[in-house]
């Protein structure tokens, strides 16, 4: 260990003699090379000797000025630093009153201070608080800290004065004070922010006027009180104050928005920042809290939301939506353009519409962009919002970057649009100003997006409905044309007695609400008769609803007739209104009623009698007012006998039976029908057919037409197709070939058979009436008694013609 050099004993330079110092320096003002440091590396030869040596050494090299003054305040010694600091030589200093080194304004009180000190000598430190100054030889003043120390010497008591130049420290302190004053003045002047400090436990330590204004407490009322009193009861119940302190301590800073409570109990919407404060050792010393009253902004946001909602609800056109959206967003977030991007599943890309300062060269207005590589695509796909604070900081596909650069957009926010959990697109806002859009704007935009998504979904649904409505309108037009086509027989063609009789019956029954049962062979025009009844009835302004019981699977017939509620059975994915309900006010035509399943027959009967139905799966009776017309080519009476058809329904249907005569019983109508069909089909096919050969017409009249009018029409349609020229060509061979022996026999009946058939037909036409002017006997040119006798002879029973 190297020993420090031992300096020669200088003593304290004084007027001609050495002053030996016996006391040690106080440790609280310890220059370098302290006695302890010296002692630490030196064997003790004698503590007093060592201390004296150290002190003499210290005196020479001390960075502080050291004066030795006597009881009268005369300088008896001074070190080199004292000479340097005050600008005097050491020799000049010796013998001077110490007052000479003090600015004149302090000298007057100096003697009394000295006397007091001499009366009570003690080590005394006079620091920054006393604002002391030294005076240089050149008259300049400088701030000093002084320590006085009484020392006993052989010549009596002296005072050691350690004087330190604190110019730099004082300047630093002054700067700090000025900063503090400025900061305080800022904090004190801010009235829109509550700025205050909390201790580590959350008790309020400082309070500013802004805090007083916002929270209504004065400083006296709130200081040292816990800050939890600013929270709502809900937040207190959830332990929110302690949680916030914990989060701030963990994260350094916590920001949040929420309701807070004023002194008078009223609430305000607060935007708060709580910051933990730590000392150099990292120890938590407290928190700073900044609170803003955002109630007005909250109300404004709510107002904008309401305004937006109204605007969105009023606009069911997607194109007009963006204008409403952009205008509303602009009230809370200044931006240059907004973009609504909707995913198009048909093309798997996004349709983007821009709204802003329209410039056709810059803003495309309406564009398609891919999902991959675009910001909107990423937000749509991930469902995560995206914020671009600076264009230079993001990386997307080149075309996206070029497009943004071309528009001059340097910042942007995009949020996903989803409704009922289904992503439909994105909403974005863009700004030319870098850094102008951030987390706060993203948060507001996300709130707006919830309503926008709903409105866009509504608008899209409206568009779909409009499309469907158009489709339905077209279908309606088509069906109407079809109906018109079908109803080309609206004026039922024919002049035969049998037809005229049927038409008279129809005219009779049409104005009533009676149920009509139309019977007749297939192809005899039963539906045509039903439509004629409806058209002539008071219900003609309402719907004529047709249901062919043979065309619907038995399991679905009940649903078709009475409808069903959603979920009534597996497959009932929506409510369906049945044909009976559809026919309310109008007419229900049940074709092929003989095919109606037995278990459904009572339900139809109930609908007729009780005039109410229940949908399948429903529990509510629905009143219905419909007229039923039923038709069949089957023998319902026989079906009743065979228990294949319910008798009660049969009699309910047979209130007014109408018999559609087969064409073979309307032979005289065939030439009229032939001309009618040839004309109609010729016109439809663009052919002018001027004549029908006699032999052709005779063959057509002669044919029995088992398929009745339907067969006749189809046959003539084929004939018109085959005809080239103005003369109708009919493939007569088909009619001749089809004649089988049985048919031939029927075509050439015996006189007995012919007579029987003829009488039966007339009896049917007269509905069994034999006597009277319109009776069968009169029509046949016979006396009533003669006809009765023939009926007996030919074995004709009443049941054969009724």
């Amino acid at each position: 260990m190297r020993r420090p050099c031992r300096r020669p004993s200088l003593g304290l330079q004084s007027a001609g003699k050495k002053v030996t110092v016996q006391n040690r320096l106080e440790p609280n003002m310890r220059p370098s090379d302290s006695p302890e440091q010296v002692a630490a590396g030196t064997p003790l030869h004698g503590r007093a000797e060592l201390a004296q040596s150290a002190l003499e050494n210290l005196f020479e090299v001390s960075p502080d000025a050291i004066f030795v003054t006597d009881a009268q305040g005369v300088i008896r010694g001074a070190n080199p630093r004292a000479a340097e600091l005050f600008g005097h030589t050491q020799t000049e200093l010796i013998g001077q009153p110490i007052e000479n080194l003090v600015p004149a304004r302090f000298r007057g009180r100096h003697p009394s201070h000295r006397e007091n000190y001499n009366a009570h000598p003690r080590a005394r430190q006079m620091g920054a608080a006393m604002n002391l100054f030294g005076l240089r030889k050149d008259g300049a003043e400088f701030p000093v800290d002084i320590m006085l120390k009484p020392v006993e010497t052989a010549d009596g008591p002296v005072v050691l004065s350690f004087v330190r130049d604190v110019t730099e420290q004082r300047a630093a302190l002054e700067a700090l004070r000025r900063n503090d004053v400025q900061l305080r003045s800022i904090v004190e002047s801010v009235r829109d922010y509550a700025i205050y400090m909390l201790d580590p436990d959350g008790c309020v330590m400082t309070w500013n006027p802004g805090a007083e204004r916002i929270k209504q407490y004065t400083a006296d009322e709130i200081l040292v009180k816990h800050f939890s009193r600013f929270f709502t009861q809900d937040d207190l119940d959830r332990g929110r104050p302690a949680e916030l302190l914990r989060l701030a301590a963990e994260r350094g800073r916590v920001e949040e928005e929420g309701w807070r409570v004023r002194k008078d109990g009223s609430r305000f919407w607060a935007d708060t920042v709580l910051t933990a404060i730590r000392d150099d050792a990292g120890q938590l010393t407290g928190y700073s809290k900044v609170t803003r009253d955002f109630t007005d902004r909250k109300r404004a946001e709510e107002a904008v939301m309401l305004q937006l909602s109204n605007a969105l609800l009023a606009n069911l056109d997607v194109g007009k939506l963006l204008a409403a959206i952009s205008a509303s967003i602009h009230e809370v977030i200044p931006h240059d353009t907004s973009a609504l991007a909707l995913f198009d599943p048909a093309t798997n890309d996004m349709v983007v519409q821009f709204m802003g300062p329209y410039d056709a060269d810059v803003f495309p207005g309406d564009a398609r962009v891919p999902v991959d590589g675009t910001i909107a695509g990423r937000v749509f796909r991930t469902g995560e919002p995206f914020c671009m604070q600076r264009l230079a900081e993001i990386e997307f596909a080149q075309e996206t970057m070029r497009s943004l650069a071309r528009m001059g957009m340097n910042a942007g926010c995009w949020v996903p649009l989803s409704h009922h959990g289904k992503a439909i697109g994105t909403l974005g806002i863009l700004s030319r100003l870098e850094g102008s859009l951030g987390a706060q704007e993203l948060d507001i935009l996300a709130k707006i997006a919830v309503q926008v998504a709903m409105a866009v979904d509504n608008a899209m649904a409206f568009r779909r409905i409009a499309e469907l409505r158009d489709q339905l309108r077209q279908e309606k037009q088509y069906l109407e044309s079809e109906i018109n086509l079908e109803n080309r027989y609206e004026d039922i063609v024919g002049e035969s007695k049998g037809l005229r009789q049927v038409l008279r019956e129809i005219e009779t029954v049409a104005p009533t609400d009676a149920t009509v049962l139309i019977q007749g062979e297939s192809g005899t025009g039963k539906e045509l008769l039903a439509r004629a009844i409806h058209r002539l009835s008071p219900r003609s302004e309402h719907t004529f609803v047709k249901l062919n019981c043979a065309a619907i699977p038995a399991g679905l017939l009940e649903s078709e007739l009475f409808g069903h509620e959603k979920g009534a059975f597996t497959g009932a994915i929506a409510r369906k209104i049945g044909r009976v309900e559809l026919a309310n006010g109008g007419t229900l035509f049940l074709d092929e009623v003989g095919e109606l399943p037995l278990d459904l027959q009572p339900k139809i009967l109930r609908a007729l009698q009780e005039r109410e139905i229940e949908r399948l799966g429903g529990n509510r009776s629905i009143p219905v007012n419909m007229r039923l017309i039923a038709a069949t080519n089957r023998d319902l009476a026989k079906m009743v006998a065979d228990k294949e058809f319910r008798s009660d329904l049969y009699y309910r249907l047979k209130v007014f039976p109408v018999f559609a005569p087969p064409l073979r019983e309307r032979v005289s109508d065939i030439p009229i029908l032939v001309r009618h069909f040839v004309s109609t089909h010729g016109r439809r096919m663009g052919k002018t057919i001027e004549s029908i050969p006699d032999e052709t017409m005779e063959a057509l009249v002669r044919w029995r037409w088992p398929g009745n009018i339907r067969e006749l029409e189809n046959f003539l349609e084929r004939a018109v197709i085959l005809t080239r020229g103005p003369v109708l060509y009919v493939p007569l061979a088909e009619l001749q070939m089809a004649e089988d022996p049985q048919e031939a026999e029927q075509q050439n009946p015996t006189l007995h058979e012919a007579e029987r058939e003829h009488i039966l037909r007339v009896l049917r036409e007269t509905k069994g009436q034999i006597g009277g002017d319109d009776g069968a006997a009169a029509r046949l040119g016979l006396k009533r008694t003669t006809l009765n006798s023939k009926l007996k002879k030919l074995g004709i029973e009443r049941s054969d013609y009724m």
Partner: protein
Amino acid sequence: MLRISIEENVEVLEMKLEGRIAGPWAAELSRVWVETAPRLASRKLVLDLSSVTYADSGGTELLGQIYAQTNAELLAGTLWTQSLAEQITRCGAQSVKREL
């Protein structure tokens, strides 16, 4: 409209389809099949198509997939449903080929 009725016993699970297997009803049939398939286990599936009145391409394809998965017995009545059953078996065969 489509009505789906399921009857089952220890050996057979019969799915009777009545009406149109098209559009939303094809989707409904798909949903019902997803629910029902796990119950099938080792039982035989019978698809009763005799009251089906129409099936679009989606419906036919779906029936083909069910057929390919289960080798179901197809019941058909009318000429049209017989034709549908033939289409289903062809679809099913193609579906199996694709999976191979």
